[in-house]
């Protein structure tokens, strides 16, 4: 019983690392965009565009890596629509982001129709590490089930978080990023372009959302169906808030929510839990990520909790030179 429950838990964590990886990419991307002072609610749309572009290009070229690049580029290109509306035209960020999601969903529904039936495409490879099993005790019990057979995108995710954390905290570019999201007038006053910085980080957010989509359609669930992201873009937006704009916490949140997505299925296979006999309970579990997203968005709309949570002060506010700083 003891060993069985350990295996059960390890399996859930392993699945969390896997299903949480697209969330990690999307959340990290949105985090970088928001740190520059721009809210982009179009993550869902950019993920879908990335997923379809990745799938289609991989199918047509036979090379999944070209597919990944195409997915990233597609997300990045779509994000520039948001950049143009919010930075150049100083439009409302919420409205523009929502529009982006609609564009992404509509576009992929139409363009993706021919790909719905296709199952056999070149996917991203899994990295096998059989030596992990030979490590005594923890090898076969923990390390191998967690890391022994993970897809290459999962490893990419492991590398991304420390890199982004270091970038924000210790580099000159990271300093500029923190400044432009808090007080863009200070950035303007020392002769840097607020618009260029924001365009760039909106682009990076789009590229990472596109990568999230491609990871989904080329590695985690290798197929294309309409709306295959199923609201993960929205969860990513909520996770940024949960993470309080910190990349380490974003990674933690992404993996937890990855596990939560799998949990209802896993719990149904445990005979002594009520989930096995009553599948409706599992539906309630599936709601958690979405409920959480709503609560997180409510928290950011409150001025007092914004301040306490470390929300970038200029988040959501277009920059106009000479208008009281922000």
């Amino acid at each position, binding site marked *: 019983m003891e060993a069985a429950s350990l295996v059960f838990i390890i399996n859930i964590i392993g699945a969390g690392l896997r299903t949480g990886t697209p969330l990690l990419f999307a959340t990290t991307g949105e985090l970088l965009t928001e740190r520059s002072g721009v809210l982009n609610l179009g993550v869902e749309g950019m993920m879908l565009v990335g997923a379809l572009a990745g799938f289609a290009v991989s199918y047509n070229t036979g090379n999944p890596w070209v597919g990944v690049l195409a997915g990233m580029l597609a997300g990045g290109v779509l994000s520039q629509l948001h950049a143009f509306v919010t930075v150049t035209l100083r439009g409302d960020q919420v409205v523009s982001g929502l529009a982006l999601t609609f564009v992404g969903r509509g576009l992929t529904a139409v363009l993706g129709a021919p790909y719905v039936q296709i199952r056999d495409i070149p996917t991203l490879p899994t990295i096998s590490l059989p030596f992990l099993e030979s490590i005594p005790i923890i090898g076969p019990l923990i390390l191998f089930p967690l890391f022994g057979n993970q897809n290459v995108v999962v490893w990419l995710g492991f590398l991304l978080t420390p890199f982004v954390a270091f970038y924000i905290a210790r580099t000159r570019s990271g300093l500029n990023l923190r400044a432009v999201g808090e007080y863009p007038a200070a950035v303007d006053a020392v*002769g840097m372009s607020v618009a260029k910085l924001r365009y760039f980080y909106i682009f990076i957010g789009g590229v990472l959302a596109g990568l999230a989509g491609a990871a989904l359609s080329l590695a985690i669930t290798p197929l294309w169906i309409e709306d295959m992201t199923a609201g993960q873009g929205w969860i990513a937006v909520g996770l940024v808030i949960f993470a309080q704009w910190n990349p380490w916490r974003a990674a933690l949140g992404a993996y937890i929510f990855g596990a939560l997505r799998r949990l209802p299925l896993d719990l149904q296979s445990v005979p002594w839990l009520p989930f096995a006999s009553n599948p409706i309970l599992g539906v309630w579990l599936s709601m958690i990520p979405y409920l959480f997203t709503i609560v997180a968005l409510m928290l950011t709309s409150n001025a007092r909790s914004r301040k306490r949570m470390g929300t970038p002060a200029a988040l959501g506010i277009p920059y106009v030179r000479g208008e009281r700083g922000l």
Partner: protein
Amino acid sequence: MTQSKTNETLALDMRGIVKEFPGVLANDDVDFTLCQGEIHALLGENGAGKSTLMNVLSGLYRPEAGEIYLYGEKVELHSPRDAIDAGIGMVHQHFMLVPTLSVAENVVLGDPSVSYIINYEELDKQIGDIAEQFGLDIDPKAKIWQLSVGEQQRVEILKMLYQGAKILILDEPTAVLTPQEVTELFKTLREMTASGRSVIFISHKLDEVLEISDRVTVLRRGKVSAEVVSAETTKAGLAKTMVGREVIFRIEKKQSEPGGVVLEIDKVNALNDRGLPALRNLSLSIRSGEVVGIAGVAGNGQTELAAVINGMREVESGRILLNGVDITNKPATISIDAGMAYIPADRTGVGSAPSLSVEDNVIMKAYRKPPLSHGWSLDLKEIARYATDLVKRFNVKTPSIKTQSRLLSGGNLQKMILARELSREPVAITAVYPSRGLDAGATEDVHERLIEERDRGAAIFLVSEDLDELLSLSDRIAVIYEGQIVGEVPPDDDRIEEIGLLMAGTAVASSSPAAG
């Protein structure tokens, strides 16, 4: 003065600068020079074009015409970066510092010579050394939000010096400082000039300008109205060139002829925003034709008292009567209809709706009744006529009555509020900090209007932090301390010390209540 000599001695030479905004010629052929090692003050009323001229110099605005020479060489300043590279550093009125970043991070922000991967130990040490070298006492590791306003200003100056500024521009640097911090700042500025740097000091405070500067250039309505050597001029002379006429520092008024009691505040208790007692059994009555000034250290209940009188804060107990009408805890419309005028401290939050037009703002208390409206429909022609008339009568400088009021300068905004409030011939007026942040000309205008209202027979309740203003306008001065009136003093220069002691809550409350 010969051309060659000019080129040798001048750090900065701005010639014929023209800058136009929609509807306003902010700089009209302005010449400005700055010698090396000089502190040159730029003086002018709000909206005279001082900030515009300096924004041209710091690369934020592109002028329509004019040339800029630095150390004899012609320069084109297209962006803030150009200005920084040319050795021009501007300390803005609103600091350009990121609150969540450290002092060192703010100082090096935007500097490409810092190593890409930042070594924070080295950086903090380097910035600490530079601060010490310039005699600025700052901890490089401290976050900006932890610092006082004076310390933040030092960070701004340090940032400019780090960027290699040879010409420092300070935009109204003393507006936010305590007197001690001002002394400290002046010391720093003198050290700067001693080391060969030059300083442009923007201000509208005459005393300060005379104390710190070598020369003064006065701007009026976008043009240079005078350029003088500070040691050879006087406060009155400067004020005259600034406003364009003689300025009276102490208003001349006749003896008041108070009539019956108009406003009666009877044992009022009220709470402040945090739910603590702000007014304790406060009683005060004001008669028609007199100005009663309230003196007190900020936070002793004066703003709450003003709010209570105008129906903008609930009273816990007690009564407020206006001409015998009970207005206690009644909606503001009741006291407005009973003839109350309110000139609030917060001009953009309470006194006006910033994104509405001047026209909409001036009719706000009159549009419910004929002739401005009939039933539910507004008479737009009549409203435009009414607003145009008020703008003219109260001398509000605005491009048009359709202009958004947030685009007005501080003085003109206050004039607009006065136009709305005083044109209705109120029986009682509450004025809270009516001249705060205004220049000499606008202040004088506000004071004259209030005295006119007094002579017409209005009862005026004046709250101010400025003792000079209180002494000049009031017929009686009541001192408030911890929500109570602790004494009443006649407005006599000899009694200032007494007022000060009452304000501090240390005087015996037996000071003679002035009769009449």
